């Protein structure tokens, strides 16, 4: 008993030193930690403590698939046209594109071959009657979703970077979700507006042959559509436009967009790539005097009159913007369009004042909790209680150091986990000391009682802690956000408490025994 193995001593010292080292950055200011390496950083505070926003959004998978299938319809139509094949009933039906090929056996075979060539990622099936069914298999759908998700992530990242948020975190969750954390942003209104827009921009010619009144009554020619204007009319009524369905130029040809001013009104100036510039030049040259509608997410931003051909591949979008509106639109156009629209499923935001209140409350409850437990242990066990308290304090250092080392985030429930750990961590020492008392009462010597206390209590400590650890692990797995923070502190606290309560207390008791050679058990 009086012997504490050298390697164990070295291990205890090593662990303690590591704990102190990793915990230390939490005590110094930000100006110092900024100069320290990545692996030696203080605990990062959760959004509930430092203030900020958490947004969860989802890609509209159904819409993505619908758009893809409508794209297939277009491809199929043009394929049949170039192959000079006749067909009927080409449409999207029940998650597939269907059509009936007319003509003889060889024409059907030709159609199948041509369709397979034109849409290689889909499955093209044809029955004896010439009924074609084009579907995307599980694998192709997964690949599409994967592609859409990673594109969305890239675009959202660009948009958020342009907003100038400090240390944003943008991560995928599952197959079709994205979690965005914006520290310091307590009102995510603007972020939501900028992130949430699909920003699909297209240019259409205005259908000047159909009046808006006719269109509102339902009389719309097949090649045209009725769209709402982005801004209401001055009298507050909604504004409508009738535009041709055909996309003259698509937004993907845009290479740059910047906010600027035209006659002191905010506008967005844009520039096309070479191909887009050529198409745009031709459209404007052919339609001088007509109106060209600029459509963003199915709403008309404005529909200016084409005064002359624009051949340089650039132009401006007017539309009664505010300065902010113009710079947001430019940002959206620069970052590109999302592959499909997104929906916000969840938003949690905390303002800086509440975060500061929570930090104060967390610190206060930790200090009070520590003081109460320390006092209780001294009253209950005297000198050995002091040993246990030293172990408890070191346990806190190890816990904070451990959390910092694994890069954990401290949340308010996480602080509750730390305080709770203080209360439960001393359990190991209680078990050991109670066992010593029992053994001593049964007539063992001081030395033998202490020895038995440590060795016999250990199995119990292990069993009792593994079960609590199981609860913490499951909580981490199924919990989210702040609750995860609780699970991490509770779980790590259990592990560090076993080390400090068993190894460290034992070391202190051994040193004390060597020095004092006691004749009575001091507990």
């Amino acid at each position, binding site marked *: 008993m009086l012997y504490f193995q050298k390697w164990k001593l070295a291990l205890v010292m090593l662990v303690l030193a590591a704990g102190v080292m990793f915990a230390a950055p939490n005590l110094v200011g930000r100006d110092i930690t900024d100069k320290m390496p990545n692996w030696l950083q203080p605990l990062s505070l959760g959004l509930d403590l430092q203030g900020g926003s958490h947004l969860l959004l*989802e890609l509209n998978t159904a819409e993505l698939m619908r758009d893809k299938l409508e794209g297939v319809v277009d491809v199929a139509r043009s394929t049949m046209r170039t192959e000079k094949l006749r067909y009927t009933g080409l449409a999207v039906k029940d998650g597939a594109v269907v059509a009936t090929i007319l003509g003889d056996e060889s024409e059907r075979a030709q159609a199948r071959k041509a369709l397979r060539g034109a849409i290689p990622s889909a499955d093209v099936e044809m029955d004896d009657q010439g009924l074609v069914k084009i579907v995307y298999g599980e694998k192709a759908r997964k690949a599409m979703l994967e592609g859409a998700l990673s594109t969305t992530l890239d675009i959202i990242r660009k948009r958020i970077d342009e907003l100038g948020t400090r240390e944003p975190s943008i991560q995928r969750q599952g197959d079709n979700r994205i979690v965005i954390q914006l520290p310091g942003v*307590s009102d995510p209104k603007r972020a939501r507006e900028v992130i949430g827009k699909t920003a699909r921009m297209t240019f259409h010619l205005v259908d000047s042959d159909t009046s808006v009144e006719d269109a509102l009554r339902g009389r719309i020619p097949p090649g045209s559509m009725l769209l709402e204007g982005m801004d209401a009319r001055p009298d507050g009524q909604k504004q409508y436009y009738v535009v041709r369905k055909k996309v003259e130029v698509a937004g993907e040809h845009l290479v740059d967009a910047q906010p600027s001013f035209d006659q002191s009104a905010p506008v967005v100036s844009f520039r096309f790539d070479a191909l887009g510039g050529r198409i745009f030049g031709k459209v404007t040259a052919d339609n001088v005097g007509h109106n060209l509608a600029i459509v963003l997410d199915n709403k008309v931003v404005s529909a200016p009159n084409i005064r002359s051909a624009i051949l340089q591949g650039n132009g401006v979008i007017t539309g009664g913007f505010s300065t902010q509106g113009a710079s947001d639109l430019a940002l959206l156009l620069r970052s590109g369009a999302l592959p499909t629209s997104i*929906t*916000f*499923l*969840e*938003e*949690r935001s*905390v*303002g800086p*004042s*509440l975060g500061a209140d*929570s930090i104060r*409350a*967390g610190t206060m*409850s*930790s200090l*009070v*909790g520590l003081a*109460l*437990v320390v006092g209780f*242990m*001294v009253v*209950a*066990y*005297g*000198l050995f*209680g002091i040993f246990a308290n030293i172990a408890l304090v070191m346990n806190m250092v190890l816990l904070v150091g451990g959390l910092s080392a694994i890069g954990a985030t401290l949340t*308010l*429930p996480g602080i*509750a986990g730390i*305080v*709770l750990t*203080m*209360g*439960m961590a*001393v*359990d190991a020492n*209680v*078990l050991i000391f*109670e066992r010593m008392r029992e053994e001593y*009462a*049964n007539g*063992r010597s001081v030395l033998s009682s202490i020895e038995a206390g440590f060795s016999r209590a250990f*199995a*119990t400590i292990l*069993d*009792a802690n*593994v*079960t*609590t650890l199981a*609860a913490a692990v*499951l*909580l981490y797995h*199924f*919990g*989210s956000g*702040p609750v995860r923070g*609780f*699970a991490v502190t509770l779980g790590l606290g259990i592990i560090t408490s076993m080390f400090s309560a068993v190894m460290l207390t034992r070391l202190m008791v051994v040193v004390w025994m060597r020095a004092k050679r006691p004749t009575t058990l001091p507990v």
Partner: protein
Amino acid sequence: MFRGIKFLPGETKVDFVGKRFIALFFSVLLLGSTGVLLLTKGLNYGIDFSGGIQMEVRSDKPVDLHDLRTRLNDIGVGEIGLQGIGETGREVMIRIPAFDNEVSQNAALKAVRDTLGPSFEDRRTEVVGPKVGEELIRDGILATILAMVAISGYIWLRFEWHFGVGGMLALIHDVVLTIGFYSITGLEFSLTSVAAVLTVAGYSINDTVVIYDRVRENLRKFKKMPVKDLLNLSVNETMSRTILTGGTTIISVLAIALFGGEVLRGFALAMILGVVVGTFSSVYIALPVLIYFKLRNTDAIAPLEAEAEPGAKQG
């Protein structure tokens, strides 16, 4: 030298097991009333589970609740609940019940923010769509059940299946009563509450394991002692520890309840109840259950190896 105070006078000899029927009566009564309570009153589900919008805002001047209520209800996004919080009269909690879909919910949030205007500071905003709410409910239930199974499974592995059953019964008892506590107090049942329930489960089993460990040890040590006496002896021997650990845990949680702020108060109160209930169930449920199983003459309990050291207690 200061030795510390013994909280219990020497060895206690309380007949816990003999009083198991009285305790069982109370337990069944409590469980029954909890069941009735959950069926009639139910739980006050927080936004995590019910979905909807919850905002905590602070104005730069005292808020006229009546006026604000009129203004918010004029938006027409459903029944808006308003409640002044804190002492300054400047802080208000706004609740809007769940929506059918995320799109109208987001539109409502925007309308409320626009109506509040810049004189209000957003202290906290939580918007949970119906989809996420359902998932969180599912995950919460799954986590609780899995935790109970995993914990009982571990006990079964380390001890024997009898102990696993006893531990499981005690766990169910504690989990149900802790949830019942949320029902009777009307405290909001949120994700943090699930954390409280699971932590209570962890604490309760921790307590049970300590007593079970002693039972196993005594079964090896006192081969002839009647099971009832042996169980009583085991509880009494560990009683001092039970009280001390329960005590340190309760005082630390008490610190959270008193100083940890509004968010953690519910969690801390449930934990305090949970520690009491968990201790009770270890003694009166997990332990007496063992009487009804044949604990002796089983292979798994190996004879005590080299336990007869001088000075150790004998029969």
